[in-house]
């Protein structure tokens, strides 16, 4: 699909342009923390295409091949480019500290790695990793206000994710940018390595093909290689999207959806649930997005999977004792809680029997818990992020409540057995904050007139909660005033969009500049906002702000203070004792 290639070629090209040239580059990169026994591709790139006689690579002072116990390959002018490359695919190392030196003439590049062991016996039987995509602190606060209520300075209850034994502040930067994307951010959790924007399961080298970059093993691959633990991947985005893909994928370009479907099939997680069925269908099937004739529905069935396309089928598969489940519930993303519950907009009419993240989590746990060797389950509430991109905070917060209800299901499962590590963590932040409330009864005609701050900020009057803790009415006269710190030219209506997900900006006639979506500019209070983002931005962007992790269960005590996102992988690997061969 050339259009996609075109977009990403631009993105990747500019990323390379920012990379300093002329030094040797070593992968894994400096300060990499590598799980003992895990597979990784070792690569050194030498600028100006020297011959092998002109370069030397040592690890702890010895030839690299001796340390790895395997020969390396050297290619001059790799892919016809102006660099030479030394490779060892699928390297492993015992625990220890390593110094890698690449010498080219008088230039020497040095990186240090820590290869870490994990102590036996394994402390956790199960790990459940909840990822609130783009879930910032204000998402949690607003979810608490909307789902628990607020009275005289106190909340009338805690979220399930609030009431956990341990907490840490997590930084999310990638190697190339302080502000990262979901691919690279989730990759840090599933591999323990830092990488660059757009990448999954690889370091970003100079390779031309997106699938050729130096790979690192994902936690799902480590688990499948080592033993009999089960794996589950659950999301309400397309299953090929960045966060779920980070469990299985190795690509420099996250939109390689058709390749990612194949990678799911290669790794074979026992439970795979989400949207995004078109990339499973052969090209000739109307509705397919594949560019080949491969039928992955048939292939998964041949591999022993039960296929579910609705909530009813999902529950039937669990009731029938299926051991492997492929659940595909929408051609695109599964509809969010706001549209499933309040508006019935989005694609609800087309897919009326979609499970939400809570129902998917229940089904996944019911299916996985029978496994004697335990399981690793990743659950993503994906649209927290997507709705924040659209500046649609109500939908983003409804999906935060949905994530919290899924966390409640996991906590109920874990009970007091103390064998299940539960982690709840965003992959990155959005610049979102609550600054007061809008009150339609305040005098004045403008949105700003309706805004009460500090003592004028009257409590909101959202409608009564339903049985699952969601307010039943949000388009009320007193509403939270939530602002985003990054936006294109847009119009702020100060109230939820009951007709469907907000579209903050649309492309102008020049095909580049984005302009306010006039649909939002005509309401009684609509306020025009001059964007603060580059002119080609069409939606809000991620923030570099740290995010809040909460956790409970064996290993959770290691979460304290401030940690890099790669540390989440390390704690999970240690709890499951995944080190060694």
């Amino acid at each position, binding site marked *: 699909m050339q259009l996609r290639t075109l977009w990403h070629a631009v993105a990747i090209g500019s990323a390379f342009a920012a990379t300093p040239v002329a030094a040797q580059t070593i992968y894994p990169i400096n300060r990499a923390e590598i799980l003992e026994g895990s597979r990784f591709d070792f690569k050194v790139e030498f600028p100006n295409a020297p011959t092998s006689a002109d370069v030397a690579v040592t690890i702890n002072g010895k030839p690299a091949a001796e340390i790895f116990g395997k020969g390396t390959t050297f290619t001059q002018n790799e892919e016809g480019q102006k660099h030479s490359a030394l490779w060892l695919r699928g390297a492993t190392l015992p625990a220890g500290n390593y110094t890698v030196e690449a010498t080219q003439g008088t230039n020497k590049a040095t990186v240090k790695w820590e290869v870490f062991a994990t102590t036996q016996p394994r402390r956790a039987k199960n790990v459940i990793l909840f990822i609130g995509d783009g879930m910032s602190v204000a998402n949690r606060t607003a979810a608490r206000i909307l789902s628990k209520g607020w009275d005289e300075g106190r909340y009338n209850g805690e979220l399930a994710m609030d009431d956990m034994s341990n907490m840490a502040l997590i930084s999310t930067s990638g190697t190339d940018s302080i502000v990262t994307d979901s691919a690279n951010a989730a990759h840090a959790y599933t591999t323990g390595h830092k990488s660059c924007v757009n990448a999954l399961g690889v370091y970003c080298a100079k390779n031309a093909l997106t699938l050729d970059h130096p790979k690192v093993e994902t936690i799902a691959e480590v688990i499948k290689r080592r033993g009999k633990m089960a794996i589950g991947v659950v999301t309400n985005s397309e299953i090929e999207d960045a966060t779920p893909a980070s469990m299985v994928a190795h690509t420099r370009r996250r939109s390689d959806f058709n390749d990612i479907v194949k990678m799911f099939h290669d790794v074979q997680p026992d439970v795979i649930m989400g949207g995004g069925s078109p990339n499973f269908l052969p090209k000739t099937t109307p509705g397919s997005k594949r560019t080949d004739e491969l039928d992955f529905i048939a292939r998964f069935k041949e591999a022993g999977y039960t296929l579910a396309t609705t909530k009813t089928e999902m529950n039937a598969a669990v009731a029938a004792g299926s051991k492997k489940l492929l659940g595909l519930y929408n051609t695109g993303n599964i509809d969010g809680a706001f549209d499933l519950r309040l508006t019935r907009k989005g694609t609800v009419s087309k897919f009326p029997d979609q499970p939400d993240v809570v129902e998917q989590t229940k089904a996944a746990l019911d299916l996985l818990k029978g496994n004697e060797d335990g399981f690793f389950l990743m659950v993503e509430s994906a649209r927290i992020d997507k709705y924040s991109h659209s500046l649609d905070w109500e939908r983003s917060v409804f999906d935060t409540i949905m994530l919290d209800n899924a966390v409640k299901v996991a906590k109920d499962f874990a009970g007091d057995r103390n064998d299940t590590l539960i982690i709840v963590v965003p992959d990155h932040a959005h610049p979102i904050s609550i600054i007061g409330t809008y009150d339609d009864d305040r005098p004045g005609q403008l949105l700003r007139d309706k805004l009460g701050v500090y003592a004028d900020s009257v409590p909101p009057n959202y409608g009564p909660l339903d049985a699952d803790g969601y307010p039943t009415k949000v388009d009320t006269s007193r509403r939270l005033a939530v602002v985003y710190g990054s936006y294109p030219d847009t119009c702020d209506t100060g109230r939820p969009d009951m007709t469907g997900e907000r579209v903050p900006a649309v492309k102008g006639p020049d095909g580049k500049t984005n302009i306010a979506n006039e649909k939002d500019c005509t309401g009684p209070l609509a306020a025009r906002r001059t964007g603060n983002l580059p002119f080609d931005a*069409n939606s809000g962007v991620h923030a570099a702000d740290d995010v809040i992790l909460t956790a409970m269960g064996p290993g959770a005590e290691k979460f304290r203070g401030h940690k890099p996102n790669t540390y989440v992988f390390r704690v999970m690997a240690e709890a499951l004792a995944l080190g060694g061969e």
Partner: protein
Amino acid sequence: MQRQRHEMLTTRRVTLMGLAVALLCREARAAEPATIAFDGLYKSFGVLGFQFSDRVTSLRGQEVRLTGYMAPPLKPESHFFVLTREPLAICPFCQSDADWPVDIVVVFMKEITPMVSAGRKVVVSGRLEIGSATDPETGFVSQIRLVDARFTLA
């Protein structure tokens, strides 16, 4: 005098233009294309694919008219764009065709044409093609297309 002549000329020009428009409209009415709608494209639409409606199948190869939204164009001028049921909500990291809705209609214009703002509703007329096809120029795979098309703002 000068002004009078100008007004006369203007009046005559308007009259002539009016006649031309009337003639064009009559011509257009004579060859009025069948109108189809996003809601009527499919008789079944599911996770495992979809089936085109009988009406769409029967109109295959004929001139039809369809109203929708122009997806963000890649270039200010093109012979190619994607028509969607609703204006697209887009995030920077899902701005690839991988994330486009499944029920898009691909439009190949008769000639290279200036595009309009995404989010503008357009009425497209063109010859209806259905069935999987890969555009040799862009590599874009589509299931339903309007070819030799033209559009007006709705």
